[in-house]
């Protein structure tokens, strides 16, 4: 994708997300987004970055993940659109559901008759279960981000199980999308901090003129730049093995989450008391990014997983994946 195409798509996406309460999935279909994404997987980065910037709560992640998971399932098993039952946070990238019980998160309220696709941690790895949402207890999930609109799921795990070998690739796709969304959120948070500090005057100067403020914002910029570079690199050149692609995607999400933390801490500090109020929009970006960071492995969990991978790789005489070559 060249710069011109990127700018054009970014403009279209901004107007899609700008419509308050708009039906984003329908508008994306009208835009022919599926064809765009099929032509260049990196278009997902544009989509989710804009989603993040707009703080959209649309459940677009399901659209990115479901086709990967359902490719090997019997046709029509899921019925209509279906929802992914994401692992309940706290177990890294591993499913929280077991053969005994299902727990998880839905990104939107299921429509009547809709089915859930549930990753299950089985003895042999990950399998998939499918069941009507009505068979579970589905309740709104209170969180740091009241705008998320997520639901908690609980209930027994269905006995019928299907091939879950696509789980790793699905998680990788989700990690890349979430990284982009978190980066978009962090960019706007930095933008708000730049706007605030450039106009807010104290001691007869905009507070952005003070070096302590300038340096914090510069570090926030660098954190985002690093995360963005790593996300772009995580798509590889098409020759990555699935294992390396998973490592790259996890690294991208971990770095994005960490960048969001850096940006949030600085933005909240330099926006002063105003930034800590409901009137000021900053809190929405702080909350939204932090909650997304918790999905499918937080930056803290992923960092530990990556460190364990590095040590195990070196111990077995393997090569640490570099992800990037000139």
């Amino acid at each position, binding site marked *: 994708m060249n710069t011109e195409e990127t700018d054009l798509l970014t403009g279209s996406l901004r107007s899609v997300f700008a419509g308050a309460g708009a039906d984003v999935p329908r508008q994306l279909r009208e835009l022919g987004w599926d064809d765009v994404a099929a032509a260049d997987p990196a278009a997902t980065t544009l989509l989710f970055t804009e989603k993040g910037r707009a703080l959209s709560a649309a459940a677009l992640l399901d659209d990115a993940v479901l086709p990967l998971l359902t490719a090997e399932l019997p046709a029509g098993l899921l019925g209509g659109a279906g929802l992914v039952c994401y692992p309940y946070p706290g177990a890294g990238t591993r499913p929280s559901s077991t053969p005994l019980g299902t727990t998880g998160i839905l990104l939107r309220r299921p429509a009547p008759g809709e089915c859930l696709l549930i990753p299950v941690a089985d003895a042999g790895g990950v399998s998939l279960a499918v069941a009507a949402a009505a068979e579970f207890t589905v309740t709104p999930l209170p969180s740091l981000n009241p705008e998320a609109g997520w639901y908690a799921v609980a209930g027994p795990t269905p006995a019928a199980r299907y091939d879950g070998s696509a789980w790793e690739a699905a998680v990788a796709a989700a990690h890349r999308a979430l990284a982009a969304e978190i980066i978009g959120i962090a960019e706007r948070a930095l933008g708000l901090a730049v706007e605030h500090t450039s106009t807010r005057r104290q001691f007869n100067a905009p507070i952005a003129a003070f070096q302590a403020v300038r340096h914090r914002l510069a570090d926030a*910029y660098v954190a985002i730049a690093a995360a963005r570079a790593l996300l772009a690199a995580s798509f590889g050149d098409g020759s990555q093995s699935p294992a390396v692609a998973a490592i790259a995607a996890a690294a991208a999400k971990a770095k994005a989450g960490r960048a969001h933390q850096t940006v949030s801490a600085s933005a909240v500090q330099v926006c002063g008391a105003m930034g800590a109020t409901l009137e000021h929009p900053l809190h929405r970006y702080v909350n939204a990014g932090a909650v997304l960071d918790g999905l499918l492995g937080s930056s803290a969990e992923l960092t530990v997983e990556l460190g364990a991978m*590095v040590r195990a790789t070196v111990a077995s005489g393997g090569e640490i994946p570099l992800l990037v070559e000139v």
Partner: protein
Amino acid sequence: MTDVNVDDHLVTDLDAYRAAVREFLAAPTVDQWRGTYLDDDADEMRFTAGLMRVLYDAGLGRYGMPPAVGGLGGDVRHWAVLFDELARAGITPTGQHSLLVTLAYPLAKFAPRLAAVYLPEFLSGDGWWGQGFSESEAGSDLAALRCRATRDGDEYVISGHKVWTSHAETANRIFLLARTGTPESRHRGLSMILVDVDAPGVTVRPIRLASGRAELAECFFDDVRVPAGRLIGADGEGWAVAMYLLQYERAAWAWLRAAVLLQRLRTLAGLLSDGAAAVPAVDEVVGTVYLDLLSLRARSVDTVRRLAAGQTVGPEASADKLLLGACEQSVYDAARSLLGPRFLFGDASRQWREEWWYSRTTTIYGGSAEVQRGIIADRVLKLPKD
């Protein structure tokens, strides 16, 4: 210079160049440089000069520079591949390499005739050059430098002093940034000159860093006469040459350091893997370092590619410099905290201790982290100054 058969394939096909380098570095010919560390910087420079010679004779150490200056063609990406492969083979890219990738390109661009005469000695390991920029009163504020070059007929007469010049104790020439304009001319009145260290009036005094290693030196110039033909760029163009040079420091040299740091992470992980069982507190630190290294490379690759494509790198390259400094300290702080007593005590960890101290300077030299943050605040974020 034309005795080696130029293999065009390796000029255009980086993968083929990588494969050729990898095969060469797997041979016992280079075993003496694998995992070798010498306490004394001068000894180490003389030792690694041998590796430069071996790579040069094999032709593989000549890619990345055009034939007109002693190279075999290709661009800065060839160096990046060479550094990766050296590190992969357990060989630290040499001190000569770190000077070469920053000095060679500005010389070739601004003084092609000097480059044709002098770069072959650098490529082959017969000589290496210091970068004489900083002075005791001109560190972060480089444009305040005072070392003077006065035109006298077809010569310049240089008087003044430079400090923190890397590997100057053993260097045979200095890339000297001197004032040819008025004392108040700031960056407009500077010129870059290639000065021989053995010229009468040049004195070099090694400086021992806190670790005890004398990697840096102080250079005194006492009415040193240099032919005007040694000017790099035009008289008064020194700042432009220095800024052009900095792009390579932000890109190619950063790539070299990332390769070295990855090698160090591998060594560190090996030292920690005695039991190989997962220890979250350890894995968290190792994972953080790994993420820092990955994002440095991901960022650096764009900068390297842009330079290779002949594009200019702008103020956003300050982010590369900040990431590199953070990464250097991340690796060595991890070593210090995870090795604990093994870091503090014993002969086996002399290198860790020396490099830990050196890593403290990585946010100081080449434009301090504070200067880089200032550049981003001013020119990228465009924050108001008053």
